[in-house]
């Protein structure tokens, strides 16, 4: 017969051993992986500047994002039901009243907040801010409760209401770097995180650190007016840091304290 005290002691020791054993191999694996690549000098913080003075609202970014990230093809039905998934979308803002009315169109990706309201509310850590500041979504873990979607003050998260479908002719056109999301999970703009992975692998294979321009999201690449600037906000010499340093700068709903990493430059 084991006394209660002894049993408790053994249980604590066993639990401790379990935690130790589970941690040890992962720590080894991580250090082994990073040994080959040269270490960058600082952790980047990815951000974007959208110059509304240059933007022509052509929606090339919307289409590029749609194709790059395997977003399902929205039919008229999805439009009617208000269930279109577009990580990059145009927000139309009306100003003034007739006859002096003016419409502005703002391209809105995920604002990649530094204080994201969506990550804290996720009950299962399916959405989180990664060390480089990107707000990520783990599709295989998401339970589809849509709490993060409702907590986002920018309405920038999307839910897969049904199975994603493409016409048969487009079957070969999906991006192999981006997973196709199953029905019932939430998804969002990732600043084309797969491109960052690619760029890191490329740089590592060439034995160098990641350089500015190695990693650009699809929307920036597609913008014919070059209204989108992207890069590392932690690097004061980067294009995005310089572009941000502009009196026309503003961020969406800055008063909410979400600290978005997408900055807009207002029309002059």
């Amino acid at each position, binding site marked *: 017969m084991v006394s209660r005290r002894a049993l408790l002691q053994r249980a604590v020791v066993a639990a401790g051993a379990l935690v130790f054993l589970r941690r040890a191999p992962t720590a080894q694996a991580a250090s082994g992986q990073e040994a080959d690549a040269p270490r960058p000098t600082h952790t980047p913080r990815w951000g974007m500047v959208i110059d509304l003075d240059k933007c022509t609202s052509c929606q090339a970014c919307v289409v590029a994002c749609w194709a790059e990230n395997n977003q399902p093809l929205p039919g008229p039905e999805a439009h009617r*039901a*208000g*269930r*279109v998934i577009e990580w990059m979308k145009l*927000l*139309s*803002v*009306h100003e003034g009243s007739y006859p002096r009315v003016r419409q502005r169109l703002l391209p*809105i990706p995920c604002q990649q907040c530094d204080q994201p*309201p969506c990550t*804290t*509310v*996720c*009950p*299962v*850590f*399916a959405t989180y801010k990664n060390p480089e500041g990107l707000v990520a979504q783990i599709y295989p*873990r*998401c*339970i*589809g*409760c*849509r*709490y993060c*979607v*409702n*907590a986002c*003050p*920018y*309405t920038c998260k*999307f*839910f*897969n*209401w*049904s*199975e994603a479908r493409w016409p048969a002719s487009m079957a070969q056109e999906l991006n192999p770097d981006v997973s196709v999301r*199953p*029905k*019932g*999970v*939430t998804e969002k703009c990732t600043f084309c995180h797969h491109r960052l992975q690619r760029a890191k692998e490329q740089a590592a294979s060439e034995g160098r650190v990641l350089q500015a321009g190695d990693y650009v999201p699809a929307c920036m690449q597609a913008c014919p007016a070059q209204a989108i600037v992207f890069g590392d906000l932690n690097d004061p010499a980067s294009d995005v840091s310089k572009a941000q340093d502009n009196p026309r700068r503003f961020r*969406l*709903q800055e008063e*909410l304290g979400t600290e978005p990493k997408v900055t807009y430059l207002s029309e002059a």
Partner: protein
Amino acid sequence: MEQPRDIASDIVTPMIRWPRGYGVFVGCLLAVIAFAAYAWTQQLRFGLGVTGLTRPVFWGLYITNFVFFIGISHAGTLISAILRLCRAEWRRPITRMAEAITVLVLFIGAGNVIMDLGRPDRALNVILHPNFRSPLLWDITSITTYLTASMLYLYLPLIPDLAILRDRLPRRRWFYRPLALGWTGTPQQHRRLERAIAIMAVVVIPIAISVHTVVSWVFAMTIQPMWHSTIFGPYFVAGAIFSGIAALIVAMAILRKVYHLEAYLKPIHFNNLGILLLVMACLWLYFTFAEYLTTFYGHQPEEMAVFWTKITGPFAPYFWAMAVCCFVIPVILLGIPRLRTISGTVAASGFILIGMWLERFLIVVPSLINPRLPFPGGVYHPSWVELAITAGAFATFLLFYCLFIKVFPIISIWEVQEGQERGVDETVERLKTYLPTAVSQPPQPATSRFQTKWS
């Protein structure tokens, strides 16, 4: 003067009778549940696309039902615990039916969240990868604690009754014997049981309050307009008790009819609960008024968009129906003593249940329809799948309750007996302790008292 009754047989007899109406009713419930199950298979196959939910209205009927049912759960344990602690003697015939509502309705509330999940197959992730910063996880913690405590609180006072059933129903002996835990009714057993019940009654009150507070925090912790409110916690708890009492009154009236419990559930019980309901109606109005006036006076554009959607916009019919159902009608029916009859309180309760469901709906949907950024606002028309599953949720609750009343005595036999045997004398004794001790010698003549006072 009523004839002395055999309480145990009064309450046990209807348990073993199976009238035709019962079978028909259960059959109807099963039909509704089967249809809801079919609707759910559609939802599982094709995703939440079969609902009326859209962007930005990501939550709809299921979350409304969740909040509503969890609110109803406050009927039982909380009210029963408060009445027990206050030693309200009239509680005796109603505690059991109240506690049963709590336990059964919690399953329905939690079930509605599962219905709402895009991936119900991954629901266990909340245990495998819990994020305790999420109010949803607070909910899960709080509701499971509440369910455990409520089940215990329902079970403890059941033990002596289970022993009665064990001795009275030989064919069901196999079921009641283990559950009765060898209860023989010795004074020591009674002492221990009453102590355990008293402890649980104290424990469940803070747990019950935490439950609906945390449910409100699911909304209030976000920064969405008209969700992000500091009074949501108490507002939800008050609403929960309000709708809970209403549900209890309706259940009492139905059981009184079908089980012929007129001798046990008397007009006074409905009257007393009716007064409690009236107080809650006033509290509900106070909270609602405070909430809406603060929003209106602050006049922030995002909040005002939601405000006007409710007051004059597309949701105005629901809003004003809610105000009439939750306040105007109940106050008339419950405030005028002549109308506070059994049918009066039941009618008021019915309206309150409708009104409180509308209130939950009006909290969930209009805020989502008006996102902060001027995206084209959403519309929300629940689909047949959502309506079927909602109907199924109500039917499942009724089915559970129908089964419960056939397996367990719906009135606590031993507590009513105890009330008859000891309660009256105890109450008289207690009342005496409230008053100044009666003076044994005859009072002094008035003149002499004046003399002492003025001399």
